[in-house]
């Protein structure tokens, strides 16, 4: 069930080869964490983006990873997804992983159901996919073209595509960053329900402090290539912004991110999102989904 992304290391590791990441299976002890990351480094053109990241995620645990734009959150997530073979260090992840990107990334030429079953070989895959679509509230949309979906619907289809794989690790890279505020709220509760039911280990990359506190069992902050903060979210009682512990944690996280709390109050969250989105758009090619109007039609 578990795979080791045994990457070569710079400093302490015993692995011989340098520079490449190999995937090797590992026996699954009951107490071992689902995700085990030690000293993971990554540099681009001589600039170190990840400078030795250590991270454990227990099976079924929901971890939110915060960080400023460009701090390397996506880089770490891509390494855990097995998409980056140039990183060094050691990492072990569950064999079955699933990724939800910021853009829904549905193949525009495949109907929604075909997108959800993509890559599945099980004989009852289509039935499972139909069930997954129903679970995310897209029952009846199986034969729709992705271009006809709203932004929120498309992202829910992407969520269904991830869930139908029964992943041991669910990787989410700012999955709600491009959605409007109302849709985002609805997606939060959907994600919370789904994770409660399926219990995958979750790594949610986000730049939204509130989102992290609302959803996660644990929050970590990535600063200068390392996890500068990693602590459980212990909110006695309800997870609402009214909870004083919520506010305290929020202030602590914002401080860690280099934003004073009162400063954050004044910043229009939408503007914050727009700036981030623009930042991401610069690195993305013209997205097929990008042209589609992102309105949650209900």
């Amino acid at each position: 069930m578990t795979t080791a992304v045994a990457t070569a290391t710079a400093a302490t590791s015993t692995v011989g080869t340098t520079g490449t990441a190999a995937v090797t299976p590992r026996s699954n002890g009951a107490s071992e964490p689902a995700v085990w990351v030690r000293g993971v480094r990554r540099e681009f053109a001589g600039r170190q983006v990840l400078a030795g990241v250590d991270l454990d995620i227990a099976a079924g645990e929901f971890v939110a990873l915060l960080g400023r734009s460009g701090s390397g959150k996506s880089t770490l997530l891509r390494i855990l997804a097995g998409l980056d073979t140039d990183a060094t260090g050691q990492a072990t992840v569950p064999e079955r992983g699933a990724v939800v990107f910021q853009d829904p990334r549905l193949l525009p030429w495949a109907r929604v159901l075909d997108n959800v079953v993509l890559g599945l070989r099980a004989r009852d895959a289509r039935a499972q996919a139909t069930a997954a679509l129903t679970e995310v509230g897209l029952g009846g949309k199986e034969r729709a073209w992705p271009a006809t979906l709203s932004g929120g619907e498309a992202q829910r289809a992407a969520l269904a595509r991830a869930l139908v794989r029964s992943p041991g690790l669910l990787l989410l890279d700012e999955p709600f960053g491009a959605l409007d505020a109302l849709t985002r709220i609805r997606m939060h509760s959907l994600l919370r329900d789904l994770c409660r039911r399926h219990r995958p280990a979750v790594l949610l990359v986000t730049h939204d402090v509130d989102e992290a506190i609302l959803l996660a069992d644990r929050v970590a902050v990535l600063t200068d290539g390392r996890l500068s903060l990693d602590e459980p979210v212990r909110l006695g009682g309800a997870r609402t912004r009214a909870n004083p512990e919520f506010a305290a944690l929020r202030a602590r996280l914002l401080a860690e991110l280099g934003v004073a709390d009162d400063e954050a109050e004044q910043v229009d969250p939408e503007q914050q999102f727009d700036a981030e989105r623009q930042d991401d758009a610069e690195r993305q090619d013209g997205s097929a989904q990008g042209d589609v109007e992102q309105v949650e039609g209900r």
Partner: protein
Amino acid sequence: MSTSLVLGGRGGNAEAGTGTEAAGTGAGGAAAGGAVAGGAGDAVATSRVVVAAPAPGAAEPGRVALALADPDRARRRPVPKWLRRMLGPVLLVAFWQIGSSTGLIQADILAGPWTVLHTGYDLAADGTLGENLVISLRRVAFGLALGVGVAVVLALVSGLFQLGEDLVDAPVQILRAVPILGLVPLAIVWFGIGEQVKVFLVALGTAFPVYINTFAAIRGVDSRFVELARTVRLGRLGLIRRVVLPGALPGFLVGLRFAFTISWLILVVSEQINASSGIGYLMDQARTFGQTDVIVVGLAVYGVLGLLSDALVRLLERRALAWRRGLEAT
């Protein structure tokens, strides 16, 4: 002035060729956005109705009464666009007929429309036209099938494999610089003047646009989808089948459209240079006897064939790219 909104940003893409042109002239979303803004401004100007009653502020300095339409005035029904567009061609044919009837245009320069219609009917009735038409169609069909088939295979080889690109792409790009019709003498040396030479020339001419567009489309497949394929463990074959081929289909269809156009062009030339049958041969024969009416009939047939083949590709595109029209269909 009013501006129509193209929703979803992929308007007109059902016809990939023209869609691209439209995007080119519209300069993308930014220009469209600007146009929309302009349109909105106009709408405000025309819809904020200042009733034509003596404008209270007309006398005041700095204010102007807008001259707006009176809603009670009966509107004239506009002449439909297609009818207006018919006007030019109809006038042209009319002048042509008048010129021919009055002897202003002599028959050995250009036969009149009525004569052409007659000749066309006669040629169709005695089977000459149909016979030669079938021969021409067959040449185009074989040439296209061969050219498109070879081009797709080559595009796949060089699009999917680095070694393939190294071996195939450079030679193709060099050969592309040679005008196909310049190869006619060589082709005659190789194949004589039978059917083969026509099929060969058509195949060669159609292969290039199909290869170039398909290759570019394969290489242009969105890398984010390739990444997705890895996260869902599609494997190499699955990647090709589910991502690369469907992603490259629009580009292939653009190439196919060019291929259809080019195939007729090459057929016309090669049939008039050396042939003993086919529409082009009919026209060349007519030239030696000065029968301009037959030549015009041949031209008309070529024109209709061109239109029909274009309609065929459009139909193909509409079928194959249904997902692009997703917003209207379901």
